C-alpha cells in the first residue's frame, strides 16, 4: 500500500497538471507531464544516473501494484515510454490508479532518501505556482517549511 501522504501528493500533482496548468491538455499524458517535470528537476539535482536509479525502482514497485503499468518501459535517460492505448484504457477504467501509483512511488523514493521537507522544496521548485503548504506533516500539523 502506498503511504497516504505521497499518494495524496501524487494526486495533487496530477490534478494540478490536469486542471491548474492550462498547457496540459491531454488527460492521458498527464502522468507523463508530471513525470517529465520531476525528471527534469531531479536529473539536474542528482544526474541522469541518479534519477534513473530512483525512477526504475519506483516503476518496478508501481508495476506490482498497478498491472496497467506492466508495459511501461524506462529509457536510459530515465524517460518513460508512452503507455499503449490498451493500457491507458485499462488504467482509465481503474480511475487512473496506475498514474497515481507511479508518481507516488517516485515521490516515496525521494521522501525515503531526503525526507519530507526537502521533497516538498523540490516539488515547489518544479511547480512554483502550486501550493504544498497544507500537506499534513508526520505529526499531523500543518507544514511550515513550504511557501
Amino acid at each position, binding site marked *: 500500500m502506498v503511504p497516504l501522504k505521497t499518494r495524496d501528493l501524487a494526486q495533487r500533482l496530477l490534478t494540478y497538471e490536469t486542471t491548474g496548468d492550462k498547457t496540459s491538455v491531454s488527460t492521458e499524458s498527464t502522468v507523463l507531464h508530471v513525470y517529465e517535470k520531476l525528471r527534469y528537476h531531479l536529473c*539536474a*539535482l542528482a*544526474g*541522469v544516473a*541518479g534519477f534513473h536509479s*530512483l525512477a526504475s525502482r519506483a516503476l518496478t514497485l508501481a508495476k506490482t501494484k498497478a498491472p496497467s503499468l506492466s508495459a511501461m518501459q524506462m529509457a536510459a535517460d530515465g524517460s518513460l515510454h508512452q503507455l499503449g492505448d490498451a493500457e491507458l484504457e485499462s488504467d482509465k477504467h481503474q480511475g487512473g490508479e496506475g498514474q497515481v501509483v507511479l508518481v507516488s512511488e517516485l515521490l516515496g523514493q525521494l521522501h525515503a532518501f*531526503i*525526507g519530507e521537507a*526537502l521533497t516538498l*522544496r523540490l516539488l515547489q521548485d518544479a511547480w512554483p505556482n502550486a501550493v504544498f503548504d497544507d500537506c499534513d506533516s508526520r505529526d499531523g500539523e500543518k507544514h511550515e517549511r513550504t511557501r
Partner: protein
Amino acid sequence: MSARDKVSIKKLPTGVLGLDEIVGGGLPEFSFNIIAGAPGSGKTTLAHQFVFANATPERPALYFTVLGESAIKMLRYQQQYTFFDPAKLPNSIRFINLSQIVLEKDLGAVLAEIIKEVEKSNPAVVVVDSFRTMVRKPQGSPSEMDLQSFIQQLALFLASWQATTFLIGEYASDELRDNPIFTVADGLFWLSQIAERNSVVRKLQIVKLRGQASVPGLHTFRITDAGLQAFSRTFGLSGHKSKPPSQRRLSIGIPELDKLMGGGIPEGDSVLVTGASGTGKSVLATQFIAEGIRQGEPGIVAVFEERPQAYADRAGSFGLDLETPQKEGTLLILYLRPLDLSVDETMNEILDAVKRIGAKRLVIDSLAGFEMALSPGFREDFRESLYRMIFALTGIGVTILSTVEVDESFTEFPFSTYSISFLTDDIIRLRYVSIDGQLRKILVIIKMRGGDHSQDIREYEITSQGMIVAGERLKNYERLITGIPERVNRFGEKEELPLKSEAKSKS
C-alpha cells in the same frame, strides 16, 4: 599607498565555529579556494557550512556535483547537521549535477555548463564537488595541463562574476608538493584524519590564504551534529592584548600559606601544586577557588577524575560551599572526562567558560587526569599544548592553579612527573614525612617567579576546615625533604631518638 587607497576585502563567515578566527576573521570574498583531503575528512561538510552561511535568494550558491557522492545521498546525510536549513533549497542553494557531461564530454563542456549556470543565477558562492574525479574518469582523461587550464579559466571566470569558490578534491598529503593546481588557488584548506591507536584525530591546515594572515599550523577539528568545529592553536586569542602584569596578590584562603608566598599568589600566575596522593592538593585547590568566590572573583574548576557533584560534596565536607556559587553563576565545575579530547578542545571549553562568567581563577585538577582524557595522539604534545594553554590563559589575567601527582620517593624530591616546572611561575610542594612514628605532612614553596617567598618548611594538616598550616617552621629536623628526617639539637647535632619501649623502661 595609504590604507584609504587599498581595496577593502570583505571577509565572509565560514559557518564553521572557530574557523573564522583561524583564517583571520573570515574568508576573503571572491577568493578561489581548494578544500583538499582524504575521503571522510569533512571536505563536503565544510563546503556545505560555508554555503549555508552565505547563500541568499539574491546571491545564491551553486553546488555542482560531479562523479562521486550521489547528490541525493549527500542531501540525505547533510540534512542531519543542524546548520542545514531546508528553507534555503532551492532558491538560495541549487544543486546541479554535472556527472553526465563529465562522462560524455570534455572539460570544455563542463566549463561551458558551469558558465551557463553562473550567468543564469549570478551566484555569490560556487562549489565543485569533487573536481578531482573529473581527471579520474576511465576514458579520455584530461592531462594535468588540461586540468590546470580548466581551473585557470574557471578561476578567472568566477572571479569576474564575483563568486567565492570552493573546489573540493581528494588528495593525499604527499600530493601537496609541486602540484601546479594549487598555485592557482587563493586559499588551500587541507583536512586530514590520523588514527592513533584506537582514536582518530582530525586536523585542519590553512596551507595558503592570499590577502590576509591566517593562524599557521595544524588546528584540531571535530565533526559534531553542528558540522565541523575548529579549535585554533591560539585558542581564539590571537591578536588579543595581553594584560599588563599585576602587582596584586590573590589569597589562597590559607593565611599561613599566603604569608609564605609573600602575601598570596601574584595575579595572573600559573601555580603548580605537587605532591603524592592524599597530600591535600585538591583541598588546597578548592580553598583557592572558594576564597576567590568569597572575594567576588568568579572561578572555574576543570575536573577530570571525579564528577562535579562529587567535587562539590567533598568541598562541602571541608566547610566550603561550592553549591551556591554554582547556582549564582560565579563558579563552574567543568567535567572534562570524555576520552579522545584534544588540548585545543579542552581549552575551548575552558575559555568559553572563562568568558561566560568572567573567571579570574582557574583550577585544573589534575594534570594527570587531563592527560588521560586526551587522545593518545595528543599526549605526545602534552607539554607543548600545556604551554600554549597556560600562556594564553595567564595572558588574559587568569590565575591558574594546577595540581599534579608525583610518586613519593625517599631519595628524590621531584616537583612533577611531566618536567613542566618551567611552565609554572610558582610551585608549592606537598609531601609526607616520617616524624616521631607518624606520617605527617609538610609543604614548601619551591619557587616564585614574581618575588621573594619564604624558605620555611612548614607542617600542615588536613582538617574538617581544610588545609591548616600550623606551628613554626620545623627547626629541629634535617633532611626533611627526603621524607625521613633526623632530629637535631640546637647545636645542629644529630639526636639519638630512644625507642618508645626503651624510654618507657627508663622512666
